[in-house]
């Protein structure tokens, strides 16, 4: 894992920043939300995919690409979480200030 992180740090950083931006926007975004049922279904799907990656079922390059995708996805999620959390702090502070 350390080897992968060192080898792909640029791409992972990209995924993290992408996530950070998305998380930043998501707090004030008025668009459509994914329903709770879909989030659960997608979580199960991700869990299955993680299971496949851990079990090393896919061979050769497909296996590598899956690992790479999951790593990028993980960094994206972390970026999203941090972005949303920070934006929420900023938004809350602005709302608390007298106009």
């Amino acid at each position: 894992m350390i080897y992968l992180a060192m080898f792909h740090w640029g791409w992972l950083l990209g995924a993290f920043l992408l996530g950070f931006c998305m998380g930043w926007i998501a707090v004030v975004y008025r668009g459509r939300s994914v329903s709770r049922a879909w989030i659960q279904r997608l979580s199960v799907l991700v869990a299955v995919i993680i299971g496949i990656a851990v079990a090393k079922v896919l061979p050769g390059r497909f296996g590598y690409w899956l690992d790479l995708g999951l790593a990028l996805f993980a960094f994206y999620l972390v970026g999203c979480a941090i972005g949303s959390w920070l934006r929420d702090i900023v938004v809350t502070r602005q709302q608390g200030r007298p106009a």
Partner: protein
Amino acid sequence: MHGLYRWSAKWWPGLIPLAILWLVAAWVSTIPLETDLTARGTAALKNTILDKSSVTVAGRDVTFAAEAFSEEGRRSAVAAVEATPGVRLVNDDTRLVAEAKPFVWVAERDNVRVTLWGTAPLPASKARIAEAARTALNGTEVSDRMGLKRSAPPRFDAAAMLLLDQVAKLKEGKVTLSDTNVSLSGMARDLGGREAIAAALKNLPEGFTVAANEIKAPPYVFQANKDPVTGTLTLSGYVPDNTVHAALAAAAGRKFANEKIVDNLKASIGAPSGFAAAVTTALGALSRLSTGTLVVSDREVKLSGDALYDAAVGQIRAGLAKELPQGWPIKAEIALKPSAAPVDATVCQQLFEQNLAKSRIRFETASASINADSAGLLDRLVEVAMRCPTTKIEIAGHTDGDGDAAFNQSLSEKRAMAVEDYLVTAGLPADRFSTVGYGATQPIATNDTEEGRLQNRRIEFLVRQQP
């Protein structure tokens, strides 16, 4: 936490650029990653001993194929690849190197190069053997066609190294090591090479045995050439050692007293047994020829030349056959020297004196038996006697002053008669000769010194024209 859950419902639009990022990352990074892992995997195997090792990477999965020389080595090599950072899976295509039964190694030498065939037990051993071959065969091309197999006998390397040193002593030939059995065939480079190889093989490592040693050596040649024009006897070729050299030179000196001896002999091992005795006998036969060549090649004795008179041809042949040791084949091509012009009694007397000036007829001590070394001189005296057929010859025997006068008298008479017998046996008519013995009564030198006594022990010829 609840907020995070709520916000996460709106994170999905980022997945589209993330998917694009993923595709680009996969497109760009796959080949560099595979190259990097291949290099790391190969580096991890640097200290392992493998044959036909190959590392191929697809994604992060390594396909590792190799032939190992032991199960332990195989496992540790696979573990080394598995431990390489970044490797996800190792497809293990390793196996053990095949066993060779029998374990055969061959070094073959021809005029151009030395070829190493067969199998070596380990790459290091293969390299060491090839390097040793290049060192031992300095300047000769070495072609390494050795493969690698398991189950070599213990101390294989040491045995192969020793055998390579023997290959260096060959002109051409083959050395085969089959398990612990050593077979050699071919031709040694030098005289004595065969013996040197046989001696070196005694140092083979424990457990190795010589199954067959069929190394031949160049013929061991001794040559003697008698040239009456220059009055020389030229000795060339080889003698086993300085002792035999001295003995043969001394024998040649006695048998060819009237010739100048040119000694070009060299010492070398590799002589057949009984060499000195056989060559001494053959030199005796050569001394009876007017002109001739003696070639002793290994055990074959080849004598060619001209005998001084008819009866000598048969005598020389028969003498060689009788006196040479068993197993020494003879090839005698002896012709008859053309008769020299007849001379009168005065010239005949001079010729006798000339022949006896440098040498004398020798007898065994206190005996009337003519020493074999005097055969050449006697044959020349026979020839002289034949050139003056109308003369009568008195043969006079003399002894030194040592011993009883009556014994010396008797001995001198018997010795004169022995010489007469020799001349008659050679084909001269007996009625031309008379013998007389003078004992020690007519010394020509002092009897007080060995040199003087030697001069006094003599046979004289007195030639008279027949009335």
